């Protein structure tokens, strides 16, 4: 069974962390992943940096830009990760924009992911219908779970469709925003969390965007299976470096 599905079966709320590969230093990738696992993180989204990350706010944009300046490329990342399964057993997801993947070759990319032991992909600008028509068979051939996003504006009909073609979890974007924007969740958001929870979808939901501390983590996981932290973790990496990851995770999980 795919590690993501296994993890989702565990009887606990899941903490998932996003970071941009190649930031702060080009070669930090593996030690960040190992440290996150050691400190109780359940799942990791490894960001493949892109020059034009449309769905990201300033923090992730800046870390992507820095990572590219440091020399990060698709090949470099695959190389860094080639032995990752010798030391790390939690689910690993690659998150990136579609163009770099397209240039690598979608099938070659998926095959490489399988070889390395990547469990899933999140590609915000690969639309659901294009995936369904053109790429689903390839992703499945290489055992990869593709994760789709929903937002407060996504219609019930479309949520049901996305649920029907998903086979891992649904990434629930907490509010209509790019990454790293909001501070705390208001009534509109909790209503939305409740509304989706009440739909009893076949796939569990993990909430992302705007989760930054134990407070927002608790609020989100009250309604969902887990939550994803990105920008707040990148800020921590920037100021504290890769050695003090436990300071961050212990604050969230306390």
């Amino acid at each position, binding site marked *: 069974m795919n590690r993501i599905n296994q993890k989702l079966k565990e009887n606990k709320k899941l903490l998932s962390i996003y970071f941009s590969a190649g930031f702060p230093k080009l070669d930090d990738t593996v030690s960040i992943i190992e440290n996150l696992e050691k400190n109780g993180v359940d799942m990791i989204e490894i960001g493949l940096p892109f*020059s034009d990350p*449309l769905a990201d706010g300033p923090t992730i944009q800046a870390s992507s830009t820095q990572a590219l300046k440091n020399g990060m490329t698709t090949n470099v990342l695959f190389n860094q990760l080639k032995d990752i399964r010798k030391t790390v057993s939690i689910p690993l997801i690659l998150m990136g924009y579609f*163009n770099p993947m397209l240039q690598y070759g979608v099938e070659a990319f998926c095959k490489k992911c399988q070889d390395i032991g990547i469990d899933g992909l999140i590609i915000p*600008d690969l*639309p659901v219908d294009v995936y369904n028509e053109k790429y689903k068979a390839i992703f499945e051939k290489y055992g990869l779970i593709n994760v789709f996003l*929903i937002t407060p504006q996504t219609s019930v009909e479309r949520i049901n469709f996305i649920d029907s073609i998903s086979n891992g979890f649904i990434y629930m974007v907490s509010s209509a925003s790019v990454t790293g924007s909001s501070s705390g969740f208001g009534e509109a958001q909790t209503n939305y969390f409740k509304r989706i929870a009440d739909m009893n979808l076949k796939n569990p939901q993990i909430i992302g965007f705007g989760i930054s501390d134990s407070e927002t983590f608790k609020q989100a996981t009250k309604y969902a299976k887990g939550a994803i932290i990105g920008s707040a973790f990148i800020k921590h990496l920037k100021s504290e470096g890769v050695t003090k990851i436990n300071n961050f995770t212990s604050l969230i999980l306390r």
Partner: protein
Amino acid sequence: MKYNINNKGYYGDFGGAYIPEMLYPNVEELRLNYLKVMQEPSFKEEFNQLLKDYVGRPSPLYFAKRLSKKYNTKIYLKREDLNHTGAHKINNTIGQILMAQRLGKKRIIAETGAGQHGVATATVCALMGMECIVYMGEIDIARQAPNVARMKMLGAKVVPALSGSKTLKDATNEAIRDWINNPVDTHYIIGSVVGPHPYPDMVARFQAVVSEEIQWQLQEKEGKSTPDYVIACVGGGSNAAGAYYHYLENTNVNLIAVEAAGKGVNSGKSAATSALGKEGIIHGSKTLLMQTNDGQITEPYSISAGLDYPGVGPMHAHLFKTGRAEFVSVTDDQAMTAGLELCELEGIIPAIESSHALAVFGHKTFKPDDIVVLSLSGRGDKDLDTYINHFKL
């Protein structure tokens, strides 16, 4: 329809809507409504009325006698430079502001490079009393100061794009992020035939008035509605799309697309997308774009801010791939020289974008009885500083 869009939003292999889910409701709303709205009699009436009384259409189709004599062929200039605000961009912004109103939107966002589209957007927002926010790269703000001032006078808020290369592509990213953050009441007026479907098609339809007029104007002047050639510069491709539109399927009409070679196609400082680009995705559209082997979008360069874009619209990618249009690239120097020549021969100061199209006459020989229509997409007022610096005037 071999060259125009199909019902799935693609021109051949190009187009589509490669957008994050956060944009889906807005783009889908537009996709479902744009053709319906454009066909409403009240929409058509208001659009045509504004084009006539506010923009000053039809724009003249001017027989350029001295230029024709010099190049020994028959050259007509389609005078989009005489439109209100000085370029073809206003045809699209008038159309889109009416669309935004019909969709109940209250707030308008736009991106701009040279500032022409920003000014055209700020203008229609003032006309309709709507809030207007224009994203513009920090570098472009510095090099296009008069247009920044115009936008401000027209009541728009100009927000600097500080990410990436701080030029047009980054301004477009920022506008898209704004739209993600404001999914309900905002309409994004894209300035060219780029972006996710239905934008390329919608913008092309608003610009199609250009070739619609060329058809009857040529009929009056030449007794036939089709020229032998249509020449236009291509940044994103909207003035070209407008000038080609009604001739796309008529292969007796040769289409010439002119891209900015900057300091030379292979100099590393160029915006010649068809020569340097590969298929990929930029701003929600599958098209040709300049990128690294690794799929990172590269920084273009052109002396002309309006052509300084690393992609082309999906229609143009298709016209290139099928060979329907001939693509030519013109350097900064060639364009500047051609621009000055038009001043001297015809008393018209062209936008540097349009000067790129004019430089084709130095590259390519036409027959004496060929009818060549050139899209003079804009006037050169905004470019005076660049002309002055270039020629040490």
